[in-house]
């Protein structure tokens, strides 16, 4: 199990990680869609139950309530076997059935159907031919289809997250499925690792390494296991942010004095300064349309969120409430920013609607940091401090649904949510 995938030079270790993240919903609010996810025919003999994963995915969002399926006999696996009366009696509004059958060369065919119980109609029907080892990933794809059909939003169950795990003086950059399973270590070091962030196509992660006794910016190609240093100028090199087209990395450099924002072609090339203030400018983040960069600046005396044109130019202040608003991240639709705000010594995640300037505090921690939007914009993943230890948590964009992702050991820090799969 614990395989070394790559060992190219100092930075490249990919160990199967020890710790999975376990996700618990701590709060849920609003109306939940009652859905029955029936055990699939043939899944008992497979290494992975598909219906269990589908049910867990949907339930975790806080938007669905799983309807008890026991007592319905026989459990339907074909459309002809569905008796809608069974499910209206259990107040289910949606029903998922399916079957798994052996296919050629050791693979299996997974077929699932989604029904609207109220209208007694079929909403979706898909089949996938996969290796048995892919059943968990297939279940996530099925949950994505169901989620989109019933909520109108893209599902994010097939996405990945990355984060830093710190145990004592040992740091690991890990990549896991969005449900915390299949955690893999893609980098290990005895020096800090900070600010990992996915490239827009999900193939690379940019992060800050301290392996050279100071912060430098590195890009790691996940499939190839190769790394490339993109910024190691005099002083600090940090806070990498990808442009949406993947062509640029905005970074924070202190090579000319205090920390300022620059951009570097992601493929290598000339560095270009974007800000010119007498304070600190850092934590750049591109808007989804690539036209604007939001960032932190204390040019006005206290750290606040500003925005500027993506090729530099006159900045405009966005936050005015309080003396500490930092680390902005655009929502995928570009209409909101999530950021860290301090109020009475507590650091919490807030979101602001850019059109109105209205903001809402989403979390209730004491030392929350590093917000990152799910690619469908529905959840914000962030780092919370629990008993002095970093742990990941997630909150819905309206603050109503909260999840905690717990890890057995170590501090879990600096999450970044990956993009939607391209296929």
């Amino acid at each position, binding site marked *: 199990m614990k395989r070394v995938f790559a060992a190219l030079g100092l930075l490249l270790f990919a160990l199967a990680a020890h710790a999975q993240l376990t996700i618990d919903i701590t709060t849920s609010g609003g109306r939940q869609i009652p859905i029955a996810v029936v055990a699939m025919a043939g899944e008992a003999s497979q290494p992975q139950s598909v219906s269990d994963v589908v049910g867990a995915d949907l339930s975790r969002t806080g938007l669905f309530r799983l309807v008890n399926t026991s007592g319905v006999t026989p459990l339907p696996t074909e459309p002809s076997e569905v008796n809608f009366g069974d499910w209206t009696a259990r107040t289910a509004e949606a029903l998922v059935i399916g079957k798994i059958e052996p296919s050629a060369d050791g693979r299996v065919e997974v077929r699932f159907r989604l029904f609207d119980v109220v209208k007694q109609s079929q909403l979706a029907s898909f089949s996938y031919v996969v290796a048995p080892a892919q059943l968990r990933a297939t279940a996530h794809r099925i949950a994505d289809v169901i989620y989109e059909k019933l909520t109108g939003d893209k599902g994010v169950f097939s996405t990945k997250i990355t984060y830093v795990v710190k145990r004592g003086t040992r740091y690991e950059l890990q990549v896991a499925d969005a449900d915390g399973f299949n955690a893999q270590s893609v980098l290990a070091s*005895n020096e800090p690792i900070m600010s990992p962030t996915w490239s827009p196509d999900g193939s690379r992660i940019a992060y800050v390494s*301290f392996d050279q006794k100071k912060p430098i910016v590195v890009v790691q190609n996940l499939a190839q296991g190769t790394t490339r240093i993109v910024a190691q100028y005099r002083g600090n090199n940090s806070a990498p942010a990808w442009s949406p087209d993947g062509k640029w990395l905005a970074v924070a450099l202190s090579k000319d004095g205090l920390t300022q924002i620059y951009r570097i072609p992601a493929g290598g090339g000339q560095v270009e300064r974007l800000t010119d203030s007498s304070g600190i400018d850092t*934590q750049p983040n591109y808007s989804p349309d690539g036209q604007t960069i939001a960032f932190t600046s204390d040019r006005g005396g206290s750290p606040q969120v500003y925005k500027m044109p993506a090729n530099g130019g006159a900045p405009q202040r966005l936050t005015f409430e309080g003396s500490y608003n930092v*680390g902005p991240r655009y929502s995928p639709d570009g209409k909101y920013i999530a950021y*860290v705000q301090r109020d009475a010594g507590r*650091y919490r995640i807030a979101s602001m609607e850019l059109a109105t300037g209205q903001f809402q505090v989403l979390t209730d921690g004491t030392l929350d940091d*590093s917000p990152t939007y799910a690619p469908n914009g529905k959840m914000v993943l962030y780092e919370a401090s629990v008993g002095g230890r970093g742990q990941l948590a997630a909150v819905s964009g309206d603050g109503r649904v909260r999840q905690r992702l717990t890890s057995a050991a170590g501090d879990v820090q600096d999450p970044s949510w990956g993009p939607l799969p391209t296929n």
Partner: protein
Amino acid sequence: MKKLALYLMIAIAAAACASHEQRTEPQVTDKSTGVTPPRSTTGSNTVNPTNPNAALTGNELHSGVLAKRSVYFDFDSNSVKDEYRGLIQAHSRYLNDHRDSHIRIEGNCDERGSREYNLALGQRRAEAVKKIMTVLGVNDGSIETVSYGEEKPVAQGHDENAWAQNRRADIKYRGE
């Protein structure tokens, strides 16, 4: 396989940080107060001018005021308190007398606040110490300022006592 990789990594990391250990004990100094550091008014004739690092193997940097390497800061502040002026002046004099010496000033923060902003704050603390040194005549090129932000606390606690120890800029000589 995993163990092998782990050992390999530790070995590499250990080699990479071989000169990094004494940083965690910035307070080890003699307790004599009002120490006047040996003042060299004649430039580099007190050390071997062809090997500036020769001084580093001796005790000059590890005794007296030059052994003091840490400047501590108040919360949310990068202003250098008067009590550290003497320490900074002593290192400035040393650097002016040893023009081939180079230092790195490493800024640090307590754990409160956002990591990346803290990284920049630590750098500003280091920069504040550097600024005094350059005013005192030290070459800009002899000083690199970097920051560890909140990533390398010397005190692991979550209270003001620990935080006060972590709001700090450390002076490190190249070759140490």
